[in-house]
């Protein structure tokens, strides 16, 4: 009884904030306990900072050739060595971080946005719309990501903007599926029923009441898909369907570097190594977020 009185005396705003704050605190505490995920998050934050500051950090112009330093091994002058035109590999990798992150982020954001809309529509309205959207998603999911991306690029042509589209398309089904199952789970809940009886429109129910409940699973999938997107974009560039060989793209650098594997293996080692570390960091972060946010594991 005394506790009730205390609770009633707390101002309404504080009452609403208290559980939210404690939930955030609990999340942070639990996440910090996962060391590999924390290290991965640190690496990604560093990479994002590098991508933003790339032009200031680059020791040399990534596009300027130096014909006196063609295929130089790593040295004090060129920490990661130079490529077939004498361009500084470190500078190109720094410039490439901007390109790789922007391609992967934009493609996954596009895929997540479209997937979320389609998933929530399928789950909320059901019927033929659900069947149509989910059967199409099933067909797309039956194909490995890279083959689907290659097929799309074969139709719309090579180039980085088309890589964004290709990666976005193969990201759609996973988001649609997650969103649909989350929508189905909360559609019948009491608060959605209450919102409906209060006269809320379908649109407001979907975006104000159902969508916030699905954010956690979307965030986990989003993080994991970025790793996949970086890998897919690098694969397409490696095959010659993505960035032009002149662009400082990690996949394209790896592709040209393979021609000099015998004389300058550092090109392949550094450009592939950075792709590997970045994808690993996103996958570890995704794993950590999933373990922290998944109520089943909690």
């Amino acid at each position, binding site marked *: 009884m005394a506790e009730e009185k205390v609770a009633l005396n707390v101002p309404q705003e504080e009452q609403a904030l208290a559980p939210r704050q404690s939930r955030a605190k609990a999340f942070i505490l639990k996440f910090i306990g996962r060391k590999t995920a924390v290290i991965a998050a640190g690496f990604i934050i560093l990479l994002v900072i590098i991508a933003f500051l790339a032009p200031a950090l680059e020791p040399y112009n990534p596009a300027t050739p130096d014909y006196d330093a063609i295929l130089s091994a790593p040295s004090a002058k060129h920490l990661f060595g130079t490529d077939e035109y004498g361009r500084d590999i470190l500078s190109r990798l720094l410039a490439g971080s901007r390109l790789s992150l922007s391609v992967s982020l934009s493609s996954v954001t596009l895929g997540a946005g479209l997937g979320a809309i389609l998933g929530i529509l399928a789950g909320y309205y059901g019927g033929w719309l659900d069947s149509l959207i989910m059967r199409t998603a099933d067909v797309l999911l039956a194909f*490995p990501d890279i083959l689907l991306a290659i097929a799309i690029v*074969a139709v719309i042509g090579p180039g980085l903007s088309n890589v964004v589209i290709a990666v976005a398309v193969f990201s759609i089904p996973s988001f649609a599926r997650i969103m649909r199952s989350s929508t189905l789970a909360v559609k019948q809940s009491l608060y959605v029923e209450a919102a409906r009886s209060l006269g809320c429109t379908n649109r407001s129910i979907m975006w104000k009441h159902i969508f916030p409940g699905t954010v956690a699973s979307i965030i986990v999938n989003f993080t994991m898909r970025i790793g996949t997107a970086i890998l897919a974009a690098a694969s397409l560039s490696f095959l010659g369907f993505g960035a032009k060989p002149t662009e400082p793209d990690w996949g394209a650098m790896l592709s040209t570097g393979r021609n000099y*594997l015998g004389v300058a*293996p550092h090109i392949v080692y550094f450009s592939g190594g950075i792709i590997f570390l970045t994808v690993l960091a996103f996958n570890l972060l995704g794993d950590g977020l999933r373990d922290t946010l998944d109520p089943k594991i909690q």
Partner: protein
Amino acid sequence: MGRYCLKRVLGTIPLMLVISFIIFMFVHMIPGDPARIMAGKDATLEEINRTRQTLGLDQPLLNQYFMYLNRMFHGDLGTSTTTGQSVAEMIGPRFQPTFTLAGCALVWSLIIGVLLGVFSAVMRGKWEDYIGMLIAISGISIPVFWLGLVLIQIFSVQLGWLPTGGLDSIQSYILPSLSLGVGVMAVMARFSRSSMLENMREDYVRTARAKGQKESMVVLKHAFRNSLIEVVTVAGLQIGGLLAGSILVETVFTIPGMGRLLVDSIKFRDYPVIEAELLLFSLQFVVINLIVDLLYGVLNPKIRYES
């Protein structure tokens, strides 16, 4: 069980029809005149018109689709615009290298992946478990084409033990299958670990332990045996990924397989070959998924009896 199999087999027919329609529409989605594209860059007006007639491009769209299906059923995959060869003849010899490569990769990755997963589950929470799972997540994150190049640099260029590419001997398959299988090994390790952990929490495992059975028997005879159904299903689904991964690995190791033909045909904009390759890759995935589904029905008594 018969009904279950029949339902699954019949279910693939509409799926293949949808896929074939999408691939058929693919040529119509490419900007420009499909007849000009199919006839090739250097084709004369007469040749373009002939191609238009042969492919029925002057007919209504639905008629064209049925004509296309009819041609496919009769094994007529068209003619390459770059070599002038029949597409079926071009693709035929490419099957064996791709399937051998995928087969080799599947065998080693399954054995190592499952062993790693079971070992990690048994050592749960210990440093061996962390190392095992770090290997697994690294396997998922590593670009196969980079791994291939690193292996070439070490084992072919530096040590000279294995060939850098091509398919001159059985040794030529070692490095490509190692690169190709690493992702599947990682998926299998993660999956078999979680499946084993789930099964080791079950009542029958507790009962077996209470009866005083040896831990190795509990793990192998009870937990592992029950994990096997799910492990087999996931393993089957990885074959599709292996075939797709072969596109990259065949490019790195210059293996004359289906994947490399697809990449080359996209580069030369050889649409009849692209169209046929996409259809065959799709058919492979559908058939593999069907076999996995049927196998799951055979292995899982729940599905067997329900049907």
